């Protein structure tokens, strides 16, 4: 039991930090531009595939730095030549634009790399056991993922709160017009934020690719969870996204590890009228939990944990 708690907590925090690497960009983009970017998880997937492609040619470390930059540049281009033009037709057009983009990226990925998962492996330099606790080993690569995510978080926080461009971004979150009239080029700030958001998602993909599975459906399976994170955290709130990421990461990881069902709790006294429902375990319910949280949050507290607005 203790073993389960320790390792599930570690894995949950790791999963949560990975979610935050994506949710942070998504929520910043949303609060600045009002765009709910459906293609955000696609940048994560591109990060994994670019990482795979570059690491088999040049090795893992070059790909660790180059792949996120490529994804970031692609994101900046999407904003500059796509979203910015669609912007004048309103938010629905922007939403549909990113929706279409997500499908295009998925299809193109399948054309280039096929429908089956690619063989993106943990690099040998990180493929060892980090520690052993209560007869269970924990891989070093997971520790590396966790440290990367934490470093990224500290870096992002430092930029946002300590640099001039960070201040401009913070101000533009609430008052983009005022920021422009003080002489700052707000469209360029938007492009940078979109690019950095995409690069962060790309970095998450590069490091998650070897640990999880790099396949064309990885974007569409992760995308909805990201929306849950930013709604539960409060749209546009970075702190909210952070806590919601950890919450969902930990809750889901624990749920998957639990094999309890109602039938076990009630033993032989279980009334037969619900049939097989009694046999359903918490682990089987795990995929539903984030969405249940989403629905409940929207009903009970539409602004999310730390958000200030409803839409």
């Amino acid at each position, binding site marked *: 039991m203790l073993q389960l708690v320790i390792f599930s907590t570690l894995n949950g925090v790791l999963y949560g930090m990975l979610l935050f690497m994506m949710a942070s960009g998504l929520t910043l983009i949303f609060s600045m531009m009002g765009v709910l970017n459906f293609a955000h998880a696609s940048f994560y997937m591109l990060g994994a595939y670019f990482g795979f492609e570059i690491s088999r040619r040049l090795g893992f470390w070059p790909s660790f730095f180059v792949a996120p930059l490529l994804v970031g540049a692609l994101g900046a281009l999407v904003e500059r030549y796509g979203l910015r033009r669609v912007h004048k037709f309103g938010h629905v057009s922007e939403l549909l634009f990113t929706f279409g983009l997500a499908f295009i990226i998925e299809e193109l990925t399948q054309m280039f790399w096929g429908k089956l998962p690619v063989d993106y492996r943990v690099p040998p330099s990180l493929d060892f056991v980090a520690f052993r606790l209560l007869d269970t080993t924990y891989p070093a690569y997971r520790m590396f993922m966790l440290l990367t995510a934490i470093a990224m978080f500290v870096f992002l926080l430092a930029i946002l709160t300590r640099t*001039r461009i960070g*201040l*401009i971004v*913070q*101000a533009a979150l*609430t*008052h983009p*017009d*005022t*920021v*422009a*009239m*003080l*002489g*700052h*080029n*707000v*469209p360029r700030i938007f492009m940078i934020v979109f690019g950095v958001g995409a690069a962060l998602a790309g970095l998450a993909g590069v490091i998650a690719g070897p640990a999880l599975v790099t396949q064309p459906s990885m974007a569409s399976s992760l995308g909805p969870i990201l929306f849950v994170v930013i709604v539960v955290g409060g749209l546009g709130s970075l702190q909210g996204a952070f806590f919601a990421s950890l919450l969902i990461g930990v809750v889901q990881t624990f749920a998957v590890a639990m094999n309890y069902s109602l039938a076990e709790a009630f033993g032989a006294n279980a009334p037969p009228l619900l049939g097989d429902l009694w046999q359903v375990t918490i682990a089987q319910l795990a995929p539903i939990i984030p969405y249940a949280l989403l629905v409940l949050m929207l009903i009970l507290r539409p602004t999310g944990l730390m958000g200030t607005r409803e839409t």
Partner: protein
Amino acid sequence: MRARLLEVGDLHAYYGKSHILHGATFSVGEGEIVSLLGRNGVGRSTTIKAIMGDVPPKGSIRFKGEQIAGLKPHQIARKGLGYVPETRDIFPALTVRQNLMLGEKGGKGARRWTMPDMFGMFPRLEERADTPGGVLSGGEQQMLTICRTLMGDPDLIMIDEPTEGLSPLMVEHVGRLLEEIAKRGVAILLVEQKLAIALRISKRLYVMGHGKIVYEGTPAALEAASAIRKEWLEV
């Protein structure tokens, strides 16, 4: 005749389908304080927003001899035009100091105003330098928003209703600040409801009605023209 810093000719502007400005024509000289008066809804704020590029303008807007109609707001600001919105728009989560820093445009060269200047004029802002802008009082926020725009070193600052909702003491402060700004060679285009302060500090005044300029004169002339005041200003 002095060189005109800002020359607006036949300016039209629309909010959606409604036609707000119907050909306003006026000018502001270097270092001059000019007021734009008129009742609510006659288009004074829209005039400033159109000059700033926040509302799409039709017509001619020349600043330092250069056509600026059609440029983007940040480009216009970088030409040396400052804008202080009626809504003040303090960045509420940022500190007073950070708000002021965002007024700077990051260019090189000597500037008229520094942060110590601002703190010298308003010790209250220095005391609260590290508090979030959102918790300041209305008057303090007004000071902060004017100072924030000054940090960008404009040659002309357009200020929309700076004394609205302020105590008489704060109104007095704002009046003195405006005179100090003009003394340093910055021209001011002031939109005001309160006739008293506009008459006291302005060199010239324009009265707007139905989206046009209906009167131009000095404060003394306007004080004498009771018919104009009755028709276009008094409620």
